[in-house]
């Protein structure tokens, strides 16, 4: 399992990857964000979660610095004890929510991924 971001011809990086990058260029490489730490841009604790989602659900938007190129991701936090600006690292989680109880077809996407844990 990796946290795969795409790098495009113009040097920009996005997570997730897209067939065409923000400036219209094609992907040329991948970057595994799980090997990097990131900084919390903002966070929330959600107390009204849909079926199959943990409650409370701590979430953050974080920003990675990949050799000077910023790339953001959104994901669950391992704790609600964080602040804007904190450094976090991705930790693997086998199942982020129960695939069987939501509206989305379970086979249509992956359900494992990375939570962010304060360093």
């Amino acid at each position: 399992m990796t946290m795969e971001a795409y790098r495009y011809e113009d040097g920009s990086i996005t997570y997730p990857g897209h067939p065409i990058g923000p400036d219209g260029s094609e992907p040329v490489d991948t970057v595994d964000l799980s090997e990097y730490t990131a900084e919390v841009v903002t966070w929330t604790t959600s107390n009204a979660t849909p079926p199959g989602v943990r409650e409370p659900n701590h979430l953050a938007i974080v920003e990675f610095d990949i050799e000077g190129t910023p790339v953001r991701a959104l994901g669950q936090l391992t704790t609600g004890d964080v602040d804007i600006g904190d450094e976090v690292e991705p930790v693997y989680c086998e199942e982020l929510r129960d695939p069987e109880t939501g509206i989305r077809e379970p086979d249509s996407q992956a359900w494992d991924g990375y939570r962010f844990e304060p360093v």
Partner: protein
Amino acid sequence: MPDVAVIGASMTKFGQRETWVRELLAEAGEACLDDAGVAPDAVEHLYVSNMASGEFEGQTGVPNALAHDLAAVPAYTARIDQTSSSGGAGIYAAWQSIASGASDMTLLVGGEKMTHRTTGEATDVIASLTHPVEYKHGVTLPSFAGLTARLYLSQFDAPRESLAKVAVKNHANGARNPHAQFQKEIDVETAMESPIVADPLRLYDFCPITDGSAALLFCPVEKASEYTDEYAVVSGIGGATDTHVVHERADPTTMGAVVESGREAYEMAGVGPDDIDVAELHDMFTILEFLQMEGLDFAPKGEAWKEMDRGTTELDGELPINTSGGLKSKGHPLGASGVAQGYEIYKQVTDSAGDRQVDADVGLACNVGGFGNCVTTAIMEGRR
């Protein structure tokens, strides 16, 4: 290209309704035709703004069902789905149908039936618009609002109370609206002490889950006077998208699609933000009212919250916002909401808004889908 008039409008009571989506749509559609004095067989195009009738109640094909129920067969029909901005997208489609010459009489009806689902189920239907990398983390639209509100309050040193004041204002307006789900005033303390839903946002920062329907009737301006002495003209309209993946936006507190759709609408109408007398903004969450005020240039970036203490956006203020009560108080039946925004602006610029009437010749409606993913902005001007 013919100018486009709105010659009739209606909306049902918003709230928890016993009727299902087909019946809600028919109620608003019939009332709208009655309002304009137009016979069903005069309708050439019929659009239904609806996000998820299939997901909510297993009823698809609603435009054709409505054409039959209203005796508008053989009108051309289409369903307009743009998630929460389906109503605004419906206004865009109806405007296009008249402006292009494809139709001389277009009925737009928006509606959604939601309250038979639990809050969790309804939240999941709405959250299904997210990208898989968002959805698997249990991200909901309210959690996007919490993430954005925390950043906004931190970046711009805005007091938490400023968001509560949006709720207080819109509830006060909704108390004057007989169609609103909540016709009840609240105070800042009540909003500030309500349960936390998505920290730092609390229960009163969020719109309710709602059943309801609204309708607008469009025709070329040169034919409007055949039906009515007072009508509105769609003088400007714009639509735009932002990234599907919300965290990929360079500035989380700027809604790019609000900025772009507003710019298009202002340019087409030949007006600017100072010319707008009244506005309906998509306050699905209180923080969105600030982001739209800034995106539409009603306030400088990071300063919309300051207008709450100045009373600028209250009914008797310089720019009344959400005179209907907004989604916050009136309710948010997804596909109906943008049409109901158009209903309120039509009422205001034709001087028929009753207890909520403000002095308005030019009004603006901004309808937001997803978390700013798709936006339509419409400007209407009264003609008497």
